[in-house]
C-alpha cells in the first residue's frame, strides 16, 4: 500500500497519458479496488480490481463524476464524509454501489486525503473491498452456528464438548516411551485411563446431557465427568484417545455409562475429532441412550426366537405359505361381482393357477415326519401336490379367504411323500391381506390312526350289536317257533284236507282251489317271518337312511307279539302321526325297540302283577328332536340299578346276557341321540326315554 499514488490532475497535465499509464500498472497489482478523484468527484484513476468489481472500464470512468458510474448509497451524507476527510485526513465506511450490470455490491471503503508538498489538499484516494461475499459467508456462518447451537442444545443426543489438550500432552509423553505399544499400555493400566478422564476438561454440555447424566445441577456434572465412566467402560475411553492420536475423523463404540446419581445405561458413544492440522483440541462427544432401543431389539429378537422355536419345535406339523397370484385373482373376482368364489374358481378353471401361486416357504420338523419326508428341502415349491385328493376343500379354503374369514378348518386327505394317503385335520389362519406378501400359517394333525380306530370301533360295535341281536333272537326262540309253527301247521293241514277232497268222488275241485290259495298265503306268511329274523341275524355294516320310527316300532312289535301274549302284557301305542324321519340304521333301531320291549315284558312278568301294560310313545320335542318313550307297569328300577343298568354285563335277570342295554345306548349314541332310564313319577314302573336328532331336511 506504500506504492506511489497517481499524481494530482494538475501534475497530470504535464504528461498525463504517460505518467498515468505507468502508475496505473503498479496500482493494478493491488487486490483492492483503487479509485482517485478530485473534490469535484471527477475520477482521475481507476485500477484493474475496480474494473472487475464495478464492471466499468477505466476509459469509461476517468474524467467523469464517480457517482455517474457507480451510484452510491453511502451510510452518511456525502458532505459529512468530505468534511471528515478534510478534518482528519481519512474516512472509513461502507457503500452500497451498483455495478454496470445493475447488481448491488456492498463495499468497505477508505478515503484518504492526499496533500501536495505544501500541505494543500490535492485529491481523494479511495480503496474499497467487496463485502458481498464476506457478508454472505458471515450469514452462512451465523446460520451454521445457530443450527449447531440448536442441535447442541435441543438434540435428543447428549453432547459433551471436551477439551483434551491436557490429555494429549500426557499421552504424548507416554507415546514417546511406548511407541507402538501405546494401546497395550493403556489397556493394561485402567488407573492411568481414569486419570486421563479426570484430566479431560468439560467445556459445555447440552440439556439432554444434563437430563441424562446429571442430578439437576449443571456445575456438578461439569466437575464430575469421570463419575460417568464405570470401570468396565474405561477401554472405550482409551480407544477414543487412541483414535484421536491415529488421526481418525470419528470414533464410535457402545459403552455402558452412568449418571452421577449411579444409574447405568447402554449407550452409543460417538466422537468427532477436529480436522487434521487444526490446532484446536476441542472435540464433541455425543451419547445416545440405547437402553430403550436395546430392550426393544432384545424383545423383538426374543419374540422372533419364540416364534421360531414354536414353529420348529412344536410337535404339531406347521407350514408357512406365501400367496402370489391370489390378490390379483381376488380383485378380478370382486370387480366381476363374484359371490360364490369356490364355484367361480371351478368354472373359470383357476384352480391350477391358484394352487401354483401358493408356495411353501417354511415347514417344521413335525411336518417332515408327518409327510414321511427326509428333509425340509423336499417341500420347496407349490402346495399343489398335497391337494390332489381334496381339490374341493382347497377351493373352499380360498373361498373362505375371499370371504374375509380369518381361519378355516377341514378334514382332508393328503398324499405323503411315500405315497401313503393320510387323513389330516387341516387348520389355516390367514394373515390380513396386506400388500403383495401374504403369509399364511397352516397347521395339520394326522388323524389317520384315529380315523382307523374309529372305523375299527364302529366295526366292533356293529359286531357286538349283531351278537346282541343273535342273543335276543335266542331269547325269542319260543316266540319265533310259535310264529313259524302257525303257518306251517296251516299249510300241512290245508294240504292234507286238499288230498282228502281230491279223494272224494267226484273230487271237490272248488274246495281244493280255495285251500291251495290259503296254503300259498300261509307260505308267504312264513317267508315274511323268516325274512324278519334273517335281517336281525345278518351281520351287516350299519346303513344310514331316512327311517320312520313309528314303522320301526310296529315291526319290533311283530317280534314281541308272542311274548306279549304269553306274558299277558297289553301293548299300548301312542305314536305321533306326523313324526319327521330320522337318519339311521333300521335294523339297529329295531333291535333297540325289541330289547327295550322285551326287558319291559320280562320285568312285568317277573314281578307277577296282574295289570301289565307296555306303553310306547313317540313325540317331537320343542327343540325339534324326536322322543321315544317305553314305559312298563313293572316294579321299576332300584336306585343301584339306575346308575348301573347301562354298564356292560350288569343284569338284574337270572338268565340273560346283560348286554342289552349298553348295546342299546351305544346304538342310540352312534345315531347322535341319548338313551336314559328313570322310574315313572308315580312309581308304577320304569320308563326308558330315547332322544334322536331329526334328519336334516
Amino acid at each position: 500500500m506504500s506504492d506511489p499514488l497517481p499524481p494530482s490532475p494538475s501534475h497530470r497535465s504535464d504528461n498525463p497519458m504517460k505518467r498515468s499509464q505507468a502508475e496505473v500498472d503498479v496500482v493494478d497489482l493491488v487486490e483492492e479496488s483503487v479509485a482517485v478523484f478530485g473534490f469535484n468527484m471527477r475520477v482521475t484513476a481507476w485500477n484493474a480490481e475496480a474494473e472487475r468489481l464495478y464492471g466499468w472500464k477505466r476509459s469509461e470512468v476517468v474524467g467523469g463524476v464517480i457517482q455517474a458510474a457507480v451510484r452510491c448509497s453511502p451510510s452518511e451524507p456525502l458532505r459529512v464524509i468530505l468534511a471528515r476527510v478534510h478534518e482528519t485526513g481519512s474516512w472509513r465506511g461502507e457503500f452500497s454501489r451498483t455495478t454496470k450490470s445493475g447488481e448491488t455490491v456492498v463495499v468497505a471503503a477508505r478515503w484518504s486525503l492526499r496533500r501536495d508538498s505544501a500541505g494543500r489538499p490535492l485529491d481523494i484516494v479511495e480503496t474499497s473491498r467487496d463485502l458481498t461475499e464476506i457478508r454472505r459467508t458471515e450469514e452462512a456462518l451465523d446460520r451454521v452456528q445457530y443450527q449447531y447451537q440448536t442441535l447442541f442444545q435441543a438434540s435428543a443426543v447428549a453432547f459433551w464438548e471436551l477439551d483434551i489438550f491436557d490429555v494429549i500432552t500426557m499421552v504424548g509423553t507416554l507415546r514417546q516411551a511406548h511407541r507402538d505399544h501405546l494401546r497395550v499400555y493403556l489397556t493394561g493400566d485402567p488407573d492411568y485411563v481414569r486419570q486421563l478422564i479426570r484430566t479431560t476438561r468439560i467445556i459445555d454440555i447440552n440439556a439432554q446431557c444434563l437430563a441424562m447424566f446429571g442430578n439437576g445441577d449443571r456445575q456438578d456434572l461439569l466437575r464430575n465427568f469421570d463419575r460417568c465412566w464405570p470401570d468396565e467402560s474405561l477401554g472405550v475411553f482409551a480407544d477414543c484417545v487412541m483414535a484421536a492420536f491415529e488421526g481418525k475423523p470419528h470414533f464410535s463404540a457402545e459403552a455402558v455409562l452412568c449418571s452421577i446419581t449411579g444409574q447405568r445405561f447402554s449407550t452409543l458413544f460417538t466422537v468427532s475429532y477436529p480436522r487434521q492440522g487444526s490446532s484446536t483440541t476441542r472435540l464433541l462427544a455425543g451419547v445416545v441412550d440405547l437402553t430403550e432401543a436395546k430392550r426393544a431389539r432384545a424383545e423383538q429378537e426374543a419374540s422372533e426366537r419364540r416364534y421360531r422355536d414354536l414353529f420348529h419345535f412344536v410337535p404339531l406339523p406347521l407350514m408357512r405359505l406365501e400367496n402370489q397370484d391370489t390378490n390379483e385373482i381376488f380383485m378380478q373376482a370382486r370387480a366381476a361381482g363374484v359371490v360364490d368364489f369356490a364355484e367361480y374358481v371351478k368354472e373359470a378353471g383357476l384352480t391350477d393357477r391358484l394352487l401354483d401361486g401358493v408356495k411353501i416357504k417354511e415347514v417344521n420338523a413335525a411336518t417332515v415326519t408327518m409327510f414321511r419326508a427326509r428333509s425340509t428341502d423336499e417341500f420347496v415349491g407349490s402346495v399343489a401336490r398335497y391337494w390332489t385328493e381334496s381339490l374341493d376343500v382347497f377351493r373352499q379354503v380360498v373361498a373362505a379367504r375371499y370371504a374375509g374369514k380369518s381361519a378355516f378348518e377341514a378334514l382332508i386327505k393328503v398324499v405323503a411323500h411315500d405315497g401313503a394317503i393320510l387323513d389330516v385335520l387341516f387348520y389355516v389362519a390367514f394373515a390380513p391381506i396386506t400388500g403383495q406378501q401374504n403369509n399364511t400359517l397352516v397347521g395339520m394333525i394326522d388323524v389317520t390312526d384315529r380315523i382307523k380306530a374309529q372305523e375299527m370301533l364302529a366295526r366292533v360295535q356293529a359286531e357286538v350289536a349283531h351278537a346282541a341281536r343273535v342273543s335276543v333272537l335266542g331269547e325269542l326262540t319260543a316266540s319265533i317257533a310259535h310264529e313259524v309253527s302257525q303257518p306251517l301247521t296251516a299249510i300241512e293241514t290245508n294240504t292234507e284236507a286238499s288230498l282228502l277232497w281230491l279223494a272224494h268222488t267226484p273230487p271237490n275241485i272248488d274246495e281244493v282251489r280255495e285251500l291251495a290259495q290259503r296254503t300259498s298265503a300261509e307260505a308267504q306268511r312264513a317267508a315274511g317271518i323268516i325274512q324278519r329274523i334273517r335281517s336281525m341275524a345278518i351281520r351287516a355294516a350299519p346303513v344310514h337312511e331316512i327311517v320312520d320310527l313309528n314303522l320301526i316300532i310296529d315291526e319290533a312289535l311283530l317280534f314281541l307279539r308272542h311274548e306279549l301274549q304269553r306274558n299277558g302284557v297289553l301293548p299300548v301305542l301312542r305314536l305321533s302321526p306326523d313324526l319327521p324321519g330320522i337318519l339311521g340304521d333300521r335294523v339297529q333301531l329295531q333291535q333297540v325297540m325289541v330289547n327295550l320291549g322285551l326287558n319291559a315284558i320280562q320285568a312285568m312278568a317277573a314281578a307277577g302283577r296282574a295289570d301289565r301294560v307296555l306303553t310306547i310313545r313317540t313325540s317331537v320335542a320343542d327343540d325339534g328332536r324326536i322322543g321315544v318313550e317305553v314305559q312298563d307297569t313293572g316294579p321299576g328300577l332300584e336306585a343301584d340299578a339306575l346308575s348301573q343298568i347301562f354298564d356292560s354285563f350288569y343284569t338284574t335277570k337270572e338268565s340273560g346276557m346283560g348286554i342289552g342295554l349298553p348295546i342299546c345306548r351305544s346304538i342310540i349314541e352312534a345315531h347322535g341321540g341319548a338313551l336314559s332310564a328313570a322310574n315313572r313319577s308315580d312309581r308304577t314302573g320304569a320308563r326308558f326315554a330315547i332322544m334322536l336328532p331329526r334328519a336334516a331336511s
Partner: protein
Amino acid sequence: VANLVIAIVDDDDAARMAVMALMRAKGFAVNGYASAEDFLQAEPNLSHCIITDIQMPGMTGIELKQRLVVENCRTPVIMITARVEQNVYQMALAAGAFCLLRKPFKANALIECVEKALAQQDDTRNESDV
C-alpha cells in the same frame, strides 16, 4: 259221520280255517270260534269233540277245559299248541285234555286223535246207556 259236530277254537284265523277244512273233508260238521269265550256263549254242549288252541288272548284252552269240567261237560277236548315248554304238556293232561298236539303237527295225527275221541265218546255213551 255227517251228524257229528266238531267245534274248533283258535284265535289264529288261518290255523282255525285249515282245521275246519280238514274236518269237513273228513265229513264232519264244523263250527269255528276265534276265542274260548265265543265258544262258551254259543254251544258248550252241542259238539261231539272240541279242538282248541291253548294260547289265546283272554281265556286259554286249558282254562276252557277246566270250565267245562266245572260245568260237568264231558265232551272230549283236543288241545293244540305252538309252545315248547315241557310243563304245558303236564298242565294240559292235568286239566283233562284228551290229547295234546304240538304245532306243527301231521294232519293225520289230528284226524286219528279226533276219531279216537269220538270212539271213546261212543263207548262212554254206550256205557251210560247201559
